[in-house]
């Protein structure tokens, strides 16, 4: 089951997602990146139906880029979150997307922020958020250890605690996770946490 979670620290926002692409009982691949870099200072961590997830996040990414081309300035994180919610809400009663989103971003004026967007387009600005079965463990872990203004070391430590908890307690726990952060220097990949590496083909 897909696990996505994230939190806001001191001048940065960090999100982690599992990297398993699963179809029924089969794991197609364990290095699927589910956190898309929306633009220079935004990340979109998505979970849900694979086709909808990729299609919808790419659609948002291209529209955010279009806004920047047309208007010469990038969207703020709040604006991008509201745009995403609008698209989900419009599609909800016609052709709904089954995608849950955590949108993390950094704005010069307002600092880091994290937005929780449900698949039925419920939008809320949060300090910590999570989706999936893993959320039962990661949210509780974050409730216990989170405080506002955490340093990067503390936040990564908390993310690792959540990953360990998910691996220990979730029956079909995903083996690998990717962690990305966004701060004043931009959105980038921070680390992978792998317990199973994809085997490369052995040449005969």
């Amino acid at each position, binding site marked *: 089951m897909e696990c996505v979670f994230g939190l806001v620290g001191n001048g940065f926002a960090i999100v982690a997602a599992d990297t398993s692409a699963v179809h029924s009982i089969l794991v197609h691949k364990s290095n699927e990146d589910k956190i898309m870099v929306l633009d220079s200072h935004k990340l979109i961590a998505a979970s849900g139906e694979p086709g909808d997830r990729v299609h919808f996040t790419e659609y948002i990414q291209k529209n955010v880029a279009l806004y920047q081309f047309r208007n010469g300035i990038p969207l703020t994180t709040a604006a991008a979150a509201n745009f995403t*919610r609008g698209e989900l*809400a419009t599609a*909800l*009663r016609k052709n709904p997307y089954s995608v849950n989103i955590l949108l993390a971003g950094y704005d010069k004026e307002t600092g880091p922020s994290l937005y*929780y967007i*449900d698949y*039925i*387009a*419920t*939008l*809320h600005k*949060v300090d910590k*958020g999570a989706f999936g079965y893993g*959320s*039962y463990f990661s*949210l509780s872990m974050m409730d216990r250890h989170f405080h506002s203004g955490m340093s990067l070391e503390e936040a990564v430590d908390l993310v690792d605690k959540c990953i360990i908890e998910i691996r220990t307690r979730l029956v079909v726990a995903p083996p690998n996770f990717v962690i990305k952060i966004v701060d004043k220097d931009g959105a980038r990949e921070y680390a992978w946490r792998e317990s199973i590496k994809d085997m490369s083909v052995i040449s005969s």
Partner: protein
Amino acid sequence: MSIFEYNGSALIAMVGKNCFAIASDRRLGVQLQTIATDFQRIYKIHDKVFLGLSGLGTDAQTLYQRLVFRHKLYQLREERDMKPETFASLVSALLYEKRFGPYFCQPVIAGLGDEDKPFICTMDSIGAKELAKDFVVAGTASESLYGACEAMFKPDMEPEELFEIVSQALLSSVDRDCLSGWGGHVYVVTPTEVRERILKGRMD
């Protein structure tokens, strides 16, 4: 579980002497899981009209955005604010437009009308208005709220006493409902000022 109980909510509006109070809980949940404890359900349309939206969070957000749009357009055309009675009729019309595919919300409207006479009303999800002279309630805790308000209400209360009564009625009712709670948000509105207060109740 009913779609109206998906996110959980509790709303009260009560009339006092030349004033009114409107209060809500602060929980945003996804069925049994609590996502946030600072969710806003009451919106200010203008200084003398407040709107509370209970029910499904995404529809509450969409409906609020549509109503703000309509009210801003009204302000531009009429060069004045909407009266609460007019606003209630607007909400009712918008809801009935979607009679066969409704917004899953139950709104509570409270305002000061002509000569600052307090006005409150609620309606069901398809716009059937219910005007009341004393109090209106909405949300998952509505049955408890009816009981608590009926017991505690008396006519012509001053703002301070009104605040106490509304707060006690809200907190005691949400304590019996697992889907709402995590504090309260109370607005007491008189012709001269709006006082907004956050209540700390049982945080569970």
